[in-house]
């Protein structure tokens, strides 16, 4: 298929991006004052113990040499060893990646489930009461701090109504999904407000636009006008918005992970930064970057799939 050709060479463009990210993270985390060895040893550290640990993890080497080793490792598909957890960073990440991915995925699905009908409702009643209500909710809903919202949801749905577990991540697929409902809802509530606004605007424009007029002039029922013409055309700009937001989400789930005790990457990252676990910070940053890149890549493919005009 001619129009999907960019799939082949697009990844090449991302190599410099990933390289840039590795370099920046590397330098950045080492600029942070504080010493991983000292964090590891805790309050009872002594200088000799610190020196021993530094030597063990190669932290006493010049920084450029450390970076060189890092790249060398990376080329072999390794990311070094965690100072705090004493295992391979890549292995550590594989143990933590699933909840974050699942959370992001569920949140996105949920927010689409919320946003598409509401935006449709609002757009079709443009100016009517339904529109006003949806607009009000979506404008108001944007400002809720997620951690606050999360606690309120827990207190209401889990403690009062006992509908969902307070926190945690389940054992099997069904159980996991069940555990993910509230966390995803927290994210979806704010993400969907953004989507609703974008979709609603696009839909209203399309509903008033030439396309809809032409369809109506052909005597198409309003349902066909809306679902066959207006909706697909309004989705195009939203896909990109969604991609940017997913990219933002991937690295930003930490608050929700932490409130809901999901054993994901966000928590891993925050703890790694606080304990100066350099290798883990680098590794997680790389994984996040790859994920973001991947999401944009998928968004490109989706856009091309929806919209034949787009050629990369």
């Amino acid at each position, binding site marked *: 298929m001619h129009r999907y050709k960019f799939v082949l060479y697009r990844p090449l463009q991302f190599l410099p991006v990933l390289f840039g990210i590795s370099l920046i993270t590397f330098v950045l985390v080492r600029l*942070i*004052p*504080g*010493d991983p060895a*000292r*964090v*590891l*040893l*805790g*309050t*009872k*550290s*002594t*200088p*000799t*113990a610190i020196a*021993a*640990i530094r*030597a*063990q993890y190669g932290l006493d080497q010049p920084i450029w040499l450390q970076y060189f080793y890092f790249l060398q490792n990376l080329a072999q598909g390794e990311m070094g060893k965690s100072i*705090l*957890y*004493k*295992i391979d960073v890549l292995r*550590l990440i594989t*143990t*933590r990646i699933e*909840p974050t991915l699942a959370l992001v995925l569920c949140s996105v699905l949920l927010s689409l489930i919320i946003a598409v009908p509401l935006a449709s409702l609002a757009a079709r009643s443009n100016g009517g009461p339904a529109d006003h209500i949806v607009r009000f909710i979506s404008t108001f809903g944007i400002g809720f701090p997620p951690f606050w919202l999360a*606690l309120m949801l*827990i*207190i209401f749905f*889990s*403690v009062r109504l*006992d509908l969902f*577990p*307070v*926190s*945690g*991540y389940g054992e099997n697929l069904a159980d996991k999904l069940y555990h993910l409902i509230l966390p995803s809802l927290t994210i979806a509530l704010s993400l969907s407000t953004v989507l609703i606004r974008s979709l609603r605007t696009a839909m209203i424009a399309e509903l008033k636009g030439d396309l809809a007029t032409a369809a109506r002039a052909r005597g198409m029922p309003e349902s066909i006008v809306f679902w066959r013409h207006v909706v697909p055309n309004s989705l195009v700009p939203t896909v990109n918005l969604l991609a940017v937001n997913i990219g933002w989400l991937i690295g930003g789930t930490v608050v929700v992970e*932490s*409130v*809901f*005790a999901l*054993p*994901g990457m966000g*928590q*891993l990252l925050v*703890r790694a930064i*606080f*304990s*100066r676990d350099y290798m883990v910070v680098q590794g997680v940053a790389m994984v996040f970057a790859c994920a973001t890149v991947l999401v944009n890549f998928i968004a490109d493919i989706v856009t091309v799939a929806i919209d034949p005009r787009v050629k990369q």
Partner: protein
Amino acid sequence: AGVLTIGRREDGTTFDPIKTAQNVDNWVFSNVFDVLVRVDKTGTKLIPGLAESWSVSDDGLTYTFKLRDAKFSNGDPVTADDAAFSILRIRDNPGSLWADSYKIVDTATAADPKTLVVKLTGPSAPFLASLALPNVSVLPKKVVESMGEDAFGEAPIGSGAFAVKEWRRGDRVILTKNPEYWDAANVSLDGVEWISIPDDNTRMLKVQAGEIDTAIFVPFSRIAELQKDPNLKIHLDTSTREDHLLINHEHGALAKKEVRQALDMAIDKKAIVDAVTFGLGEVAYSYVPKGALYHYADNLQRPYDPEKAKAMLAEAGAADLNLNYVVNAGDEVDEQIAVLLQQQLAKAGITVSLQKVDPSQSWDMLIAGDYDISVMYWTNDVLDPDQKTTFVLGHDSNMNYMTRYNNPAVKDLVGAARVEMDPKKREEMYIELQKMAKDDVNWIDLYYSPYRNVSRANIETFDQNPLGRFFLEETKKN
């Protein structure tokens, strides 16, 4: 019977005991591994662990341990060889964080499969107590060597009451009852799950909702409310935690003893106890915490008297003292104390500017002497007061816990107490040290606080000793 679920703040980092210094790890090690000598529930006495009995030679250099018939969870017997291996490993392994504490060990050998002989390079009163540290737990030599250290750190084999069944990183550690445990008959629980729930609110709500049996690290602010819940039991267990205000003795007027004393008097510790611990803590007056060995109950308590403090400051020529207070970011209690202290010291005419920094960075600042005052805390790992005393008063390489406190007389006494084998005399020496420290105001003792845990009403005996060990082998779930 049943599986006990415990909610805690963070996940563990490794199961290789010598490579971590974190409480989250140590507290699970006590369930999984066993040590030669244990500390009892009161935190004041050493009792047999894997060693049934022990004797010390007259010169205090040779320790002989008689091991009991115990097995690792894989069925292998625990031998003196394993014990010797574990002690030498913590001393020699490049990844060991505890090597310094065991440099005193000269040799450790197995006289026979059940007899361990440890020779020291010099006499050391705290040595026996240091063997109770979970980090020097007895590991199966063969397994460690065949699996490799890293693999062992993830799926360990021990001789404790429970065995690691699964470790879901970031989420929970699942332990099952170890049928090979030497006292297995008395272990009631079928297993234990340590679940990490970082958010304090969530953790409490989770116990309240009955989704977990117990939770540790109950915030002070929640205790009163949780106590009202008939389904819950609050456990306030004595700990060795002491919060104190570090003073940089090398900074300007703080070098003067009178200024430091004035500072002590300008601080209303009771108010801190009330506001920060909701009255659950206790005002501290000695660096040896209450409930710990050799705590001196009659130590001097300077009265809260901001007026007098002001006068003393004026006399010492430090009437308008400006202090730079390093606060640990992200620590709720720390920030609260900072806000309180700022207002209290203002009453004595002292201007305090708060500087909030990332905890790992505040370390650097404290070590570099880049501060005037800062709040820190200490909990004992070992029963013997020597460890803390050395760090705090012994002029060790840490500049007396970053305070730069310098009193040669104190230093000598610390050294002497370490090698004094007569308990009676040692106690005297430590009381003297506590008095001297108080007089010099090496730092300002603020408050002692208990361990705060909560459990569902059906959980029995959920105890923690002052050193932090949970006695889950005694816990019952009804």
